[in-house]
């Protein structure tokens, strides 16, 4: 049988894309192949286990840490900057949104014009206006709660659900930001609200265990896939788990025939054919699959004649600034598990050349952990004192980093991970300007802390974890500069698409997944037109 579509991977990109296609054409034949297996969702025992032990049932589908002297580990980091893969993605049915935070920002119009505005990198081959309607649809598809009055960036539709009001904990940060003449805004967040119609997504009940939501109120592709396969009438949607796609097979230089995969359950290696191949394995695996699909037509892997596949690898450094406060008289405590306040004040055209950044007030600031205080044997009086006395507060954030040719990901020969996927080589070195940029950011954060009567503890902790990895098959109209075109189709091949953060041209200062979803919905329309033709 020849499918209309084979999709490699089952994360949000695969799920949103297939949802879009099947909504218009319920008979489309789609084979989705996922290397990982299923995790039980909304289970009371697993939820309580998370509450009392912090254990997540999908942690075993993460990468292991890099090898250390006494530990075999997994993958190889060969660059100057350690970019951990461990914890940065989940290789499971439904992919990484099983553990994402759900922060759902849009890029800003200037983000699409990096080269024009800064003389560095390249422009996106599409602009904000092209993506804007899809952003709106993506917000509805995911179920984002946000402030529909916030018009920066501009929006033509409302969020499906109202924003979560700022928390009491946000008060001092908000006052400080305001006093400094800056603006702050609600964090648009993928949490379902109340609907007048019935929905398989329960509304968020502010339970605060979002990494394993007991109600399915935070978008996870897992729940949406279950809904599509169990509740919807899509006769030709097939999802096979435990199936690792090894290669994409070509008929000719510009035509893919299908793929070859290994079924871990039956221990068979099988080939299947399709009209269109969608690579939606995330920004690490997608380029690796293209690289290892070597044939007489593509000696260095598909789409890789110019050696760009896997290059321009980038992620967001996530920084945490901590400061001391002398007292917490109003007994502020963590009441939520997701942030409600951020400032995009430094996410503007003026900051673009050096690296835009956003600041977020995390829900764990002040950092009070009553459970830990009790378990450590503190008395009631000691705990009360600890809550209202000296404490620490935090400001988190992300800064845009420019993607560079020298930074890349690739397959590590002859080494597989526990999922059966080839292990990864990561080569990343931060730019020499990065430390100066962080010093600048620190100067801005210090002013906010000063306004709060908080004393900064010093430099931030910075995580380079590959959570937001992107640009490894970047879009460009120029095949010499990019791997994919404006529809995320591989240059030089008529029927292979990369539906992933890998296709981003640059990342802006914000989390990528809303943009990825908008791009997936847009690709769905493109594929539907192609299938109809």
């Amino acid at each position, binding site marked *: 049988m020849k499918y209309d579509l084979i999709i490699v991977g089952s994360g949000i990109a695969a799920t949103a894309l297939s949802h879009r296609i099947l909504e218009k054409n319920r008979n489309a034949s789609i084979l989705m192949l996922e290397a990982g297996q299923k995790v039980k969702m*909304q289970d009371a025992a697993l939820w309580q286990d998370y*509450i009392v032990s912090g254990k997540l049932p999908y942690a075993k589908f993460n990468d292991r840490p890099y090898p250390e002297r006494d530990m075999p580990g997994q993958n190889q980091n060969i660059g100057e900057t350690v970019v951990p893969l461990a914890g940065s993605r989940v290789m499971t049915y439904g992919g990484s949104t099983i553990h994402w935070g759900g922060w759902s920002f849009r890029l800003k119009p200037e983000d699409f014009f990096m080269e024009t505005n800064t003389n560095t990198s390249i422009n996106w081959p599409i602009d904000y206006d092209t993506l804007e309607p899809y952003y709106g649809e993506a917000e509805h598809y995911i179920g984002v*709660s946000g402030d529909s009055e916030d018009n920066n960036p501009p929006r033509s539709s409302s969020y499906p659900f109202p924003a979560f009001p700022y928390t009491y904990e946000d008060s001092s940060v908000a006052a400080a930001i305001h006093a400094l003449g800056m603006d702050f805004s609600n964090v648009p967040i993928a949490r379902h609200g109340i609907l007048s119609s019935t929905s398989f997504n329960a509304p968020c009940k502010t339970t*605060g265990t979002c990494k394993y939501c007991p*109600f399915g109120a935070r978008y996870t592709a897992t729940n949406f896939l279950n809904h599509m396969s169990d509740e919807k009438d899509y006769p030709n949607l097939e999802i096979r788990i435990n199936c690792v796609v090894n290669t994409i097979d070509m008929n000719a230089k510009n035509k893919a025939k299908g793929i070859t995969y290994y079924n871990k359950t039956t221990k068979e290696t099988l080939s299947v054919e399709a009209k269109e191949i969608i690579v939606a394995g995330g920004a690490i695996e997608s380029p690796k699959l293209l690289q290892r699909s070597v044939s007489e037509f593509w000696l260095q892997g598909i789409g890789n004649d110019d050696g760009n596949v896997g290059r321009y690898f980038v992620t967001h450094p996530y920084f945490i600034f901590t400061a001391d406060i002398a007292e917490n008289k109003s007994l502020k405590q963590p009441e939520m598990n997701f942030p409600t306040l951020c400032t995009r004040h430094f996410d503007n055209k003026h900051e673009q050349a050096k690296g835009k950044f956003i600041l977020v007030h995390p829900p764990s600031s002040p950092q009070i952990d009553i459970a830990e205080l009790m378990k450590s044997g503190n008395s009631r009086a000691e705990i009360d004192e600890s809550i209202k006395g000296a404490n620490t507060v935090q400001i988190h954030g992300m800064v845009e980093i420019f993607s560079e040719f020298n930074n890349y990901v690739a397959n590590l020969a002859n080494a597989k991970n526990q999922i059966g996927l080839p292990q990864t080589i990561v080569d990343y070195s931060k730019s020499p300007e990065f430390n100066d940029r962080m010093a600048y950011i620190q100067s801005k954060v210090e002013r906010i802390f000063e306004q709060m009567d908080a004393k900064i503890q010093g430099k931030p902790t910075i995580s380079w974890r590959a959570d937001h990895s992107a640009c490894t098959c970047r879009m460009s109209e120029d095949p010499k500069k990019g791997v994919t075109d404006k529809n995320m189709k591989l240059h030089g091949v008529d029927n292979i698409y990369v539906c992933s953060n890998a296709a981003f041209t640059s990342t802006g200062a914000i989390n990528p997944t809303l943009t990825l979803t908008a791009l997936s919905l847009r690709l769905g329309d493109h594929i539907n037109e192609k299938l109809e033709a």
Partner: protein
Amino acid sequence: MSTKPVIHPLSQNLDTIEVEVFDTMFRLFEHIGVYWQNIDNSEPYRSELYVFMQNRINLYPIYHQYYKAAFNTINKMIVQMGEQACYQEIFTDPYANLPPVDTNLSIVRQKVSNEFIDFQLSLGGFKSFGATNYPGYIGGALIPGQPVPYRTMEKKT
């Protein structure tokens, strides 16, 4: 939440929790509220504690043993030192809180009492410390026209 719970294969054939074991565990749970003065009346949580313990056993069969061991240890300690001193020691002995879990007291502390603390706070025990919501507590949805289920910037509910 899901109706078909996850059950470890070894948990399927275990006996249900014995009445006297559960009673002792419930007394321990009650004493958390007494010691930290954060829940006056734990009675309404009796059945929730039972389900919680059953869930722990379903996930990890060894909890059946942990609860039995805790039952024996607590009752022996009460005979030796009286109720108040027994719970005080369970809640505060610094060595019982150190991993690994290799003594009877450390089983009671780390596998039972500490977990009950997490559970008790998520059931509402956090409220007496001044907050309206807490990670693990089902605060409630944002319903138009109704109070927000956590303290907000505008209004300290």
